[in-house]
């Protein structure tokens, strides 16, 4: 199968759906002329000039306008530039997009997609490095997708663009350039179906996004020591695939949850809680959570590395849980 990058797969998904559906259009900061800060829209440069455009730096209006455009029948895709900047327009999402359908008793279709980069990059420091997917998993009213591979992002974005509910997609900055197999023919990936990225039988690692790759690297290392790790990529957090996780725990009897966002009250705590509520008898050891240390992201490379989890933390957690 041909291999393309994560960014190219995203671009293909958007372009193919735009060709089919004239109501799709996409806007945000630095996308039309520049192709996005991290190149997410590079493959869309020069395409559909009327339907891909740049906006002023007005996040509350950008996010809120997606809601209005959806309500009059359009299907907007909004780029949020940096996940951190979701906070500058947060009321339009958490108080409007997430609530309007519910509080009006189910009126209207909110087919809109918010998408953009999140996570660490090279020393972007505290205001340009955040992973905040937990917040949107916590506040009801939006579906949360967090793809880790070119194949997954294309399939999940296509599903988002055919759904009638609001979706937010977090794309890790360090993933845009990774390559992977993506079929040429049309396909979609349903929400709420996890992907077992590596099968194993001693420890289950549940993860998403960049940490999928760190976990796979850890699993490869651990294999050399004779330890078999199963890596489950949830792919979507709302809804999340409880069934696949619990089935895996029943097989391995050990669970590690790994994410880049802060450990304290990160979404891993939710997964851990549900698993102990519903599969306690299958656990041979306490569940271990891996997440960033509970400080804002520091600037200096060694400080950033200290705060952010990677494959070494996964190796350590797996060894600890088997001890």
């Amino acid at each position: 199968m041909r291999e393309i990058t994560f960014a190219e797969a995203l671009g293909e998904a958007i372009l193919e759906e735009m060709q089919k559906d004239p109501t799709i259009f996409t806007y945000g900061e630095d996308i039309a002329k520049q192709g996005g800060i991290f190149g997410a829209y590079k493959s869309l440069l020069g395409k559909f000039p009327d339907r891909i455009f740049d906006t002023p730096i007005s996040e509350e209006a950008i996010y809120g306008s997606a809601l209005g455009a959806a309500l009059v029948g359009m299907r907007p895709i909004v780029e949020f530039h940096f996940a951190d900047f979701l906070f500058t327009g947060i009321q339009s999402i958490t108080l409007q997009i997430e609530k309007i359908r519910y509080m009006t008793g189910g009126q209207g279709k909110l087919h809109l997609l918010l998408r953009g980069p999140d996570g660490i990059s090279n020393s972007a420091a505290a205001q340009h490095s955040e992973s905040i997917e937990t917040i949107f998993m916590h506040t009801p009213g939006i579906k949360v997708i967090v793809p880790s591979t070119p194949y997954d992002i294309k399939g999940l974005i296509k599903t988002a663009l055919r759904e009638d509910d609001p979706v937010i997609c977090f794309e890790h900055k360090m993933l845009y350039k990774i390559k992977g197999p993506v079929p040429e023919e049309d396909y979609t990936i349903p929400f709420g179906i996890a992907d077992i990225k590596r099968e194993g039988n001693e420890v289950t690692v549940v993860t998403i996004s960049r940490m999928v790759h760190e976990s796979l690297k850890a699993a490869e290392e651990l294999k050399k020591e004779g330890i078999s790790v199963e890596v489950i990529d949830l792919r979507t957090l709302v809804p999340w695939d409880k069934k696949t996780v619990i089935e895996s725990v029943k097989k391995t009897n050990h669970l590690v949850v790994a994410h880049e966002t802060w450990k304290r009250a990160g979404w891993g705590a939710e997964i851990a809680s549900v698993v102990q509520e519903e599969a306690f008898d299958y656990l041979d050891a306490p569940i271990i959570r891996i997440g960033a240390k509970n400080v804002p992201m520091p600037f200096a490379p060694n400080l950033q590395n200290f705060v952010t989890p990677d494959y070494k933390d996964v190796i350590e957690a797996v060894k600890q849980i088997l001890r």
Partner: protein
Amino acid sequence: MDYTKDFLLNLYSTMVIIRNFELKAEQLFLEGELPGFIHLYIGEEAIATGVMANLRKDDFITSTHRGHGHMIAKGADINKMMAELYGRETGYCKGKGGSMHIADFSIGVLGANGVVGGGLPIAVGAGLGIKMKKSDQIVVAFFGDGASNTGAFHESLNFAAIYKLPVIFVLENNMFASTASTKETTAIENISDRAVGYGIPGITIDGNDVIAVYETTQEMVKRARNSGGPSLIEAKTYRIKGHFVGDPELYRGKKEVEGFWLNEPIKKLEKRLESEKILSSTEKNKIWENAQKKIEEAVKFAKESPIPHGKDALTDLFINDSGYDY
């Protein structure tokens, strides 16, 4: 301009229905019949009425926490409105929204909004969508002087201006942002002056004069429908009642309020219609009686409507909720 008797009496009737709806809502709330909060539109009826007389059914509006008047003037079903205030299954939002979140997308009301300024970005988006669809619909964003000091106001006006969106921003300046007087919270006398900063027309009018509201809006609607872009209308009025029913109103004196009752919009139109011999006392009584009858019927409808089941709280979040953990 000359108007037909029917047209003028229609304006009058709409204002009278809004007034009676609000008086009844106030009474019911004070009697402990209604849960939540109620924000009354009493004294501001001319704005919704005058603006909406220019709109088509397929035009859109965004409303505010003080939104009953906008709903009624846009043609909402009063029974469903009252049922929503009662939190009943037959209400506009099946009891999930209440007074502050009342909406009817089928008549273009994209929602009242509990967030001051919250409707402005939504209105801009509706305008953007209309422009993308190349339709000749328009959007009116209602908001108050309080909202004019939010970031959403500035972002939305600039956004609408750069893309020339068919959005009319109708600022209902009722002299109060909750308990704070506009004089204390806003540095300029006429907020419409801010339109200059976005390169769009801005005009301040007497919001208690329904004809002035109608005529100004007519001009701006024409402009918006013909791809002329957005505009800002500041309609000055006065919030005769408190911010919410039950407001102790420690921030103003009774005398001040009494003075404004003399200039309220329904009496103002009445005087004109009576002097032009358009409204006889018989007709006037009939209009008020009809309005009261309608409202009483709405109350009866609401009270006889079923209360939602607890489990109904787990519906209407998503269209496709497969796999969702309620």
